[in-house]
C-alpha cells in the first residue's frame, strides 16, 4: 500500500475523499446542491479553507487577511486570460505564483509579530488591498464592476496558436470549456491534489515543526531553532492555496471583483475553518461546504417555496410551520448562520469534526465498531 508514501489509513482517506468529491454531483442531489456552480464553489472554497488551515491549524497564527490572496489570484488569472490565453493552466499557475509573491511580502512583515498583532497586521494589508482595488486602482482592477475578459483583448498566446473562441470568452482547457460540470471536475481534481498536499504536510516533519511552534514557540526558539522561515513557508503555502482558489474562481467565471478581498471574506474562511474544526484535515472542507450551502440554498427559500415544502401537512399546521421557519430562511438566512455558529461552538467546541468524533466514540463504546471510519484529526 505504498500510495505516494502514505500510510494505509491515509491512503484510504485519500481515496474516500476523492470518491466523495468526484461523486458529489450524485450524492448532493437529495440536498438540492447538485448543480455545477455550487459544486464548483464547494471545491474552490474547500481548497481555500484547507490552505488556510495549514497556517492557522498547524501554527495557530490567525490571519485575518487571506482574502487578499484570493483576490490577487483572481485578478492575476483574469489578466493572464486577457494577455495570454484562455487556457486555465497558465492562468492558475500565474495566479498561484503571484499570490505567493504577495504572501512572501505580507508574510515577511506580518510574521514579525504574533497573536492578535499578527491578525491585525494581515487584516490591515488585506483592507488596504481591498480599498485601493475598489477605487484608486480601478484602471487595473476595473473597480466595482469587476475585471472581465473582453473579446478584443490581446490574448497573445491564443492568437499565436490560432485558438479562436466564439461568443463571450470563457476559460478553455484544450477545447473543453470551463463551464458547468467540466469546470467542476477541473476544480475537483485541483482540490484533491490540494488535499493530498495538505495531508502530506500534516504528516511530514515540516508539519510536525509547525505544530511544535503552535504548542510552544518559545521553547522551540530556546532550543536554538529558528522558527521564522518555517512560519513564512506555512504562510506562503497557505497564501498560494488562497491564490489558487481565487484563480479557480476566475477560471470558472472570468470576473474578478474587489469585494472578494474585503475583511468579511477573510472572516468567512476563518469561520469555515473553525466551524469545521481547526487543525483537522477534513474539517475546513466541511465548514466551507456548510457555509456555502447556507449562502446559496437557504437564502433561496421564499414564502411560496416554503408553502410548497410543507404542503403535505394539514393547512393550519402548514401555516404554523411556514411562520416558524420563515424568519430563518430567505432574507433571514444570516440568522440561521449566526445561530449555527453559536450552537456549534457552544456544544461542539472544536467544530464539526470533533462532534463527529465524539459521536463515533460514543457509538464505539456502545459496542458498535466500524474499521473504516477512522477519526481523522
Amino acid at each position: 500500500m505504498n500510495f505516494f508514501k502514505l500510510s494505509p489509513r491515509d491512503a484510504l482517506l485519500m481515496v474516500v475523499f476523492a470518491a466523495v468529491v468526484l461523486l458529489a454531483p450524485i450524492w448532493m442531489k437529495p440536498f438540492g446542491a447538485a448543480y455545477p456552480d455550487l459544486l464548483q464553489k464547494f471545491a474552490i472554497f474547500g481548497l481555500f479553507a484547507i490552505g488556510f488551515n495549514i497556517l492557522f491549524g498547524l501554527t495557530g497564527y490567525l490571519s485575518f487577511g487571506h482574502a487578499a490572496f484570493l483576490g490577487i489570484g483572481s485578478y492575476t488569472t483574469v489578466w493572464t486570460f486577457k494577455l495570454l490565453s484562455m487556457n486555465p493552466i497558465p492562468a492558475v499557475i500565474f495566479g498561484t505564483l503571484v499570490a505567493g509573491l504577495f504572501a512572501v511580502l505580507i508574510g515577511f512583515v506580518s510574521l514579525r509579530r504574533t497573536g492578535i498583532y499578527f491578525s491585525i497586521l494581515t487584516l490591515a494589508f488585506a483592507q488596504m488591498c481591498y480599498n485601493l482595488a475598489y477605487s484608486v486602482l480601478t484602471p487595473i482592477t476595473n473597480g466595482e464592476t469587476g475585471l472581465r475578459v473582453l473579446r478584443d483583448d490581446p490574448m497573445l498566446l491564443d492568437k499565436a496558436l490560432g485558438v479562436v473562441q466564439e461568443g463571450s470568452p470563457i476559460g478553455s482547457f484544450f477545447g473543453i470549456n470551463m463551464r458547468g460540470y467540466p469546470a467542476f471536475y477541473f476544480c475537483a481534481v485541483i482540490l484533491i491534489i490540494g488535499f493530498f498536499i495538505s495531508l502530506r504536510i500534516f504528516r511530514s516533519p515540516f508539519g510536525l515543526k509547525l505544530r511544535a511552534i503552535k504548542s510552544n514557540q518559545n521553547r522551540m526558539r530556546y532550543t536554538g531553532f529558528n522558527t521564522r522561515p518555517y512560519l513564512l513557508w506555512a504562510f506562503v503555502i497557505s497564501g498560494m492555496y488562497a491564490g489558487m482558489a481565487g484563480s479557480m474562481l476566475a477560471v470558472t467565471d472570468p470576473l474578478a471583483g474587489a469585494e472578494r478581498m474585503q475583511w468579511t471574506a477573510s472572516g468567512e474562511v476563518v469561520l469555515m475553518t473553525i466551524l469545521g474544526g481547526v487543525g483537522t484535515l477534513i474539517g475546513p472542507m466541511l465548514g466551507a461546504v456548510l457555509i456555502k450551502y447556507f449562502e446559496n440554498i437557504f437564502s433561496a427559500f421564499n414564502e411560496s417555496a416554503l408553502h410548497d415544502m410543507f404542503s403535505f401537512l394539514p393547512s393550519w399546521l402548514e401555516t404554523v410551520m411556514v411562520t416558524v421557519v420563515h424568519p430563518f430562511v430567505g432574507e433571514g438566512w444570516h440568522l440561521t448562520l449566526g445561530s449555527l455558529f453559536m450552537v456549534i461552538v457552544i456544544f461542539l467546541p472544536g467544530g464539526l469534526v470533533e462532534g463527529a468524533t465524539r459521536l463515533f466514540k460514543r457509538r464505539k463504546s456502545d459496542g458498535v465498531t466500524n474499521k473504516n471510519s477512522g477519526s481523522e484529526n
Partner: protein
Amino acid sequence: MSKKVSQPNGWTRRSVLKTGLGTAAMAGAPMFFVRNAHAFTNDPSSGSTVTLGFNVPQTGAYADEGADELRAYQLAVKHLNGEGDGGMMNTMQPSSLKGNGILGKKVEYVTGDTQTKSDAARASAKRMIEKDGAIMITGGSSSGVAVAVQSLCQEAGVIFMAGLTHSNDTTGKDRRKYGFRHFFNTEMSGAALGPVLESSFGNDRTAYHLTADYTWGWSQEGSIKKYTEALGWKTNAAVRTPLGAGDFSQYITPVLNSGADVLVLNHYGKDMVNSLTQAVQFGLRDKQVNGKDFQIVVPLFSRLMAQGAGENIKGIYGSTNWNWSLTDEGSQAFVKSFGAEYGFPPSQAAHTCYVQTLLYANAIEAAGTFNPCGVIEVLEGFKFDGMGNGATEYRAEDHQCFKDVLVVQGNESPSSQFDLLKIVEVTPRAKVEYSPTMEGYAGDLGECVA
C-alpha cells in the same frame, strides 16, 4: 473524518469509483450553456410552467429596497397569472398579455440574495439558471451587480431585465444583447437636472462635488459636471470619498471655505443619507456664499433611502425614475394595486421591477416563443405607453429605455410619511436623449445565439 465506505455486494473500491465517475458524467449530461441551433437555455415549452428568477439584495444595506422589489415581482407574477386586479396590465399599450400566464403557462418564480456583491449575485443567478431552470433573471440594486449579472446572462443565453441600476455603463460600454434596462441613467439625470438647476439657481454658480469613489459615482459626477458646466457653472473641486465612509465631516469642512455655492452629493443609499445629514448639520444650507444661498443637490433620489435623512431632504433637488404620486392612469393603477396588497405605496425600485417583468412577459406573447432571440427582437425598439412614464421606447442600439425623467424636490410639507418627494418637472424624453455611440458610452451588444 466520519464518512464511511461501505462495500456491499463485493464491489471493489476501484469499481465503485469507476461506476461513480461514469454515473457522474451521465448526471452531467444535461449540460447547461451548451447550445445548438434549435435549443435554448431552459426552454419551458415541454412543461406547464415557466420560471422567472428574481435576484435582489435581501441582506446588507439595500435589503429594504430589495424587499420592495420582491413585492413588486410577486405582484407582477400574480397579475400575469390572472390573479388580483391586473394593475398596469390594464393600462399597458400595446399589450399582448392575456392574464393566463405566459403563452398559457403558469408563471412561477425563484428568489435569490445578491447581497449587493457581484460574486454572490452571480452565484445566485447561476443557481436559478442551472438548478431552478429560470428562463429570465431580473433584479439588482447596484450597477456593479447589474453589469456582472448581465454579462453572465449573456454567456448563459438567458435574458436579463435589469432592476435598479443607474450607471451609464449598464447600457453603455457594458451593454449586452441579452440585457435590458428600463431604469434611467446618470446621463439622463444630468440632462434633466440641468435646466431645472439653471432656472432655480441661475447660471453663475460654483459647484463642489463629493463623489462615491467607484464607477457609478464617477459616472454621475461626469454627467452632472457636463450639464452644469454647459450652463456656465464652474466646478470648484470634485472630491472622491471612500464607499461607506460613515462620517463625512472631513470631506464636508473643506466645502465651507472653498468658495463653492452648490454642493453636489454623488452618493447613493446609506452614503447619501449620511453625507446629506451631515452636510445640513454643518450648516451648509444656512450659508451665504458669493451673495447667494448655498444649495445642495442630490442627483439620484431614492424615496426609501431618503426616509433615513428625515427633515434634511426638504427642498433638495434631485431626479428619480418614477414616483407614486404621479397621476397618470398607469401609475395610479399600479399604486392602487400595490397599496391594496401591501398597505403602502411602491418605491421607484418596485416600479421598474414590476414594469420589467410585464414587458418581458409581453414580449414573449408578442413573439409567440420563449426563445430569447425572438424576445430580444420584439423588445428592441419596442414602443409602449401606460406604464407610468408616458410614451417609452426600448432603443434597439443599446437596450436602454427612453422616457420622461422626473426632477423632484424634497417635499417641504409632506401630507404623509410617504409623501417625501415633490415633482417639480417632468423632463420630456426628447431632452434626455443622446447618441448610442456617444464618447465613453459606446459598447458592443454581442450576438444572440440560438
